[in-house]
């Protein structure tokens, strides 16, 4: 596009902590419901965020972003004012016990990959956002063969895979410690 003002190699601005007071600004009504609980195929994705001593983190905010059940990439607006279309985006704050919950669908996977939900983590005390992936255990062969998971050290791989339970899928986040969740950096992020 000729009118785009190209200014190559600009340096990204630094992130900062979301702080303690986002609670009246970022969470929106129904933000944790990507689909209604009555939706065919609706599943609950839930868990607890804990710190380096295993203490629940009551002031963190999680966002998820995912493909629809058929693997299509959502391009519909409406994530802040929930309505009819599936937008693929959810936002949930942790409660006083550090727990969060989304209602969503299991995303379709790309060929040769295991299905995952992309997740971003914000918290008071966390100076920049963290990225991770929530892999869903719906296809053991796909999990075994997924090329990204294969590159994660065996002893840490389980931190990226949710576990099925009676409520849906459980995915706990450990910000620090022996069983710390694997967090991601992407090309073009600062190393």
């Amino acid at each position, binding site marked *: 596009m000729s009118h785009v003002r190209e200014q190559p190699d600009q340096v990204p*601005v630094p992130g900062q*902590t979301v702080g303690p*007071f986002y609670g009246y600004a970022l969470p929106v009504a129904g933000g944790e419901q990507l689909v209604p609980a009555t939706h065919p195929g609706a599943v609950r994705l839930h868990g607890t965020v804990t710190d380096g001593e295993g203490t629940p983190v009551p002031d963190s905010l999680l966002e998820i972003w995912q493909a629809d059940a058929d693997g299509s990439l959502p*391009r519909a607006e409406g994530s*802040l004012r929930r309505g009819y279309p599936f937008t*693929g985006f959810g936002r949930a704050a942790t409660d006083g016990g550090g727990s969060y919950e989304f209602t969503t669908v299991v995303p379709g996977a790309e060929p040769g990959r295991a299905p995952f939900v992309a997740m971003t983590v914000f918290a008071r005390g966390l100076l920049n956002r963290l990225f991770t992936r929530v892999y869903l255990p719906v296809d053991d062969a796909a999990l075994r063969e997924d090329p*990204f998971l294969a590159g994660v050290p065996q002893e840490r791989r389980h931190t990226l895979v949710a576990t099925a339970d009676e409520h849906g899928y459980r995915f706990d986040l450990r910000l620090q410690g022996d069983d710390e969740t694997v967090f991601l*950096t992407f*090309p073009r992020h600062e190393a």
Partner: protein
Amino acid sequence: MSTTPPTATQADVDAEISAASAAYDAELRAGTAPRTQPRLDYAPYRSSRLRHPTKDLHHADPESIELVAPVFGHRDVAVDEADLTIQDGGEPIGERMVVAGRVVDADGRPVRRQLVEIWQANAAGRYVHKGDQHPAPIDPHFTGVGRCLTDDDGGYRFTTIKPGPYPWRNHHNAWRPAHIHFSVFGSEFTQRMVTQVYFPGDPLLALDPIYQSIVDPRARERLVAAYDHDLTTHEWATGYRWDIVLTGSHATPMEQEDDA
């Protein structure tokens, strides 16, 4: 928020900030590339102690879903949400100001029609949030929350009230410099970020462990808005410009053109 009274003084925290700064200077002299982002393990910010990962971030190549971003539209954001001075049935007290700029990626490409959210304290340094116990007045005409969508040039513009500094419990007599929280999406999920913008000449910047967690002086100055007299409007509001550069996208320029 800790209920234990903090015992460290500002002088103690200043010494820790200086030590971290000296260690960073030594890294630079040893040939390490400048850091552009905050340290996650920054002890002067006490709450980071148990909340930063200790293992290296794992390299991932973005997959399809991570190469696109959530879509927001006028269904999500009303035009008047960009004016925080008209939200609640009356005019808020304080220094009325405009904060405006562009959201671009590291290649200078505008991030078009994307969501920007802000939240801030009022002129007295008080948040509406129930957890804020600072005994400063709540302004009944100011929520401190705003949203907008960027325009086709990546431009955003908020009208608001200059936030006041406020005390917090990181250490004894700790004060945050005046700031506005910004939540920004890019054209890819990998560009998602939350940050804070500050104002020039604030004496609290040098004392603030959150700001100083960006150990590179040039990097942290990218979070300080510039007073811009061209944005200042006659007999109405002062103006500050702050451009938001996100990380680079992974799409090629050709793909971006196809999307446009």
